[in-house]
């Protein structure tokens, strides 16, 4: 079995590698002079060019800022929205329908429209925040919804006040779902930040647009890889936080 599995992995890896080489060749262009002056990736851009680390860090910081700030604002707003939804049931369908519609509005348009009213940063943060609302509110509410009825009953029966119940039972029990929502929102926003390049922001995606503009694949590869790495790192960090914050959810020895 393991031998067969190893063989399968080997075949898959070889196929992937072959595809990669083929794709790299296609991307590098067919003409030889393009190959010489404009290869898929110029390693010296990353390793010997003095300005690269500073620029990369600057863009990463902008990207991080455009990710973290909207998610934070989104968390605050979604908490309020969720509280309202949990308090007034009829708001539920209204809010989720609205958020669903918001999600179909193309982000380029949202950025462009908002930038006519606000500064670039404000417009970008507003647009990105609005995209986090659906994910965050949905998970906040779903998390609280999924708290076992029995735990709530016990909390009431043991004499917790409404606020104590929320703080000591409902929120901790909803935490895995809430944190998953925050993680997904964060990773989604990392991808969306790139589109704010249409309003001269864009963080790491500036590399992608710039590279496209100058037919300079080095920049595109750099931007792509850096964006994905940033998303992966944030994903791992947030998974770590989830893991640390919910010790009870990971210990499941069958009784």
């Amino acid at each position, binding site marked *: 079995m393991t031998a067969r599995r190893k063989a399968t992995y080997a075949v898959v890896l070889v196929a992937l590698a072959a595809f990669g080489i083929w794709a790299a060749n296609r991307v590098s262009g067919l003409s030889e002079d393009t190959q010489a002056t404009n290869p898929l990736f110029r390693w010296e851009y990353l390793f010997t060019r003095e300005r690269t680390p500073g620029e990369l860090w600057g863009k990463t910081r902008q990207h991080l800022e455009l990710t973290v700030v909207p998610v934070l604002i989104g968390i605050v707003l979604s908490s309020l929205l969720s509280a309202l939804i949990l308090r007034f049931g009829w708001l539920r369908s209204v809010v989720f329908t609205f958020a669903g519609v918001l999600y179909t509005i193309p982000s380029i348009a949202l950025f462009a429209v908002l930038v006519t009213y606000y500064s670039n940063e404000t417009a970008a943060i507003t647009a990105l925040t609005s995209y986090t609302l659906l994910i965050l509110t949905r998970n906040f509410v779903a998390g609280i919804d999924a708290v076992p009825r029995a735990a709530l009953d*016990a*909390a009431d*029966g043991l004499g917790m006040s409404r606020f104590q119940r929320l703080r000591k039972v409902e929120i901790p029990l909803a935490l895995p779902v809430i944190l998953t929502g925050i993680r997904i929102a964060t990773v989604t926003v990392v991808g969306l930040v790139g589109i704010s390049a249409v309003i001269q922001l864009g963080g790491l995606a500036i590399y992608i647009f710039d590279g496209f503009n100058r037919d300079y694949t080095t920049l595109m590869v750099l931007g792509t890889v850096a964006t994905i790495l940033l998303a992966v790192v944030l994903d791992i960090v947030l998974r770590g936080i989830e893991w640390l914050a919910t010790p*009870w959810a990971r210990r*499941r*020895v069958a009784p």
Partner: protein
Amino acid sequence: MTGTAIELRGVTKSFAGADHPAVAPLDLTVNAGEITVLIGPSGCGKTTTLRMINRLVNPTDGVITIDGTDIRQRSLTDLRRAIGYVIQQIGLFPHRTIAQNIATVPKLLGWDRARTNTRVGELAELVGIDASMLKRYPSELSGGQQQRVGVARALAADPPVLLMDEPFGAVDPIVRAHLQDELLALQARVHKTIVLVTHDIDEAILLGDRVVVLNVGGILEQVAAPDDLLASPANGFVASFVGNERGIKRLSLARVERLALDAGPVVDRLASGADIKAAADAAGVDWVGATESGRLAGWVPVEDLRLDAAAPLTGTELRPVVAQLRPSSSLRAALEVILTARSSTALVADEDGTYLGSVTLETIRSGLAS
């Protein structure tokens, strides 16, 4: 004796949109230090009634007092913290360890850590939770263990009143029987005023000091001690609810000690042949039991004895008594013994072996009739 009496006076509950009230005006007294069982078919409002006591449900009308105080005069949280609460789904907080779960109410009451920890240790021992489990999370425990923790959590702040809503409904029959025995043993030590809801008549009869039978709509049909309930159901509803085997059920409920025992075919080991013969004949059996200084020593068939000897039983080898009962044995056990014994007579001796008397089918019949 600790404990507090609970009084329900004209308590009614109507839910919005329902045609009939869930609980019709209900008068009920729950005696201090007793287990009172609420039982009835689905929709009889037994759980609603229970939940009105700690105000998880507010009565539409009527007054509930605990120890003479109207429960509405206390703050909701204070009231609930002074009442233990155990539910069928257990409702342990999955994100808190067993120790933290047990410590819920002490923490709410602001006990210091040392006192809380001591109490958690005591309770764990009381309900039979191993100290090593305290650090675990509920998902790592079996259903029976979880329910023990549920009981411990309810008892944490030593509340005088304990409300239990089908506490053993979710565990398998073997574990349930264990937990029921444990509850009785526990109650013998703590003497709480317990109100317990169940739909299982056997559980009600086993656990209850008094059983309250409710009909659909919260109508009170009968309040009685289990034996009385079985012996004389107030009406057809109660009779059908307790079932047509109530005579058999009484057998498992009633104990040998309540019977008027016969003297039985038992004589002292030094008795004369005539006495032996007389005793065996009186009981209508062909054997005789022997006591030594009041303790049951064994039996022997009469035909094996040389009745003309001075004391036929001395020097005769006695056979051990198999058909032997204790005062605490149920009548059901007595019946079993009688049916399988050599003759229709069982002998009763207490823990020390002191002979008390004999039981026959007739003894049981007349005991139940009384």
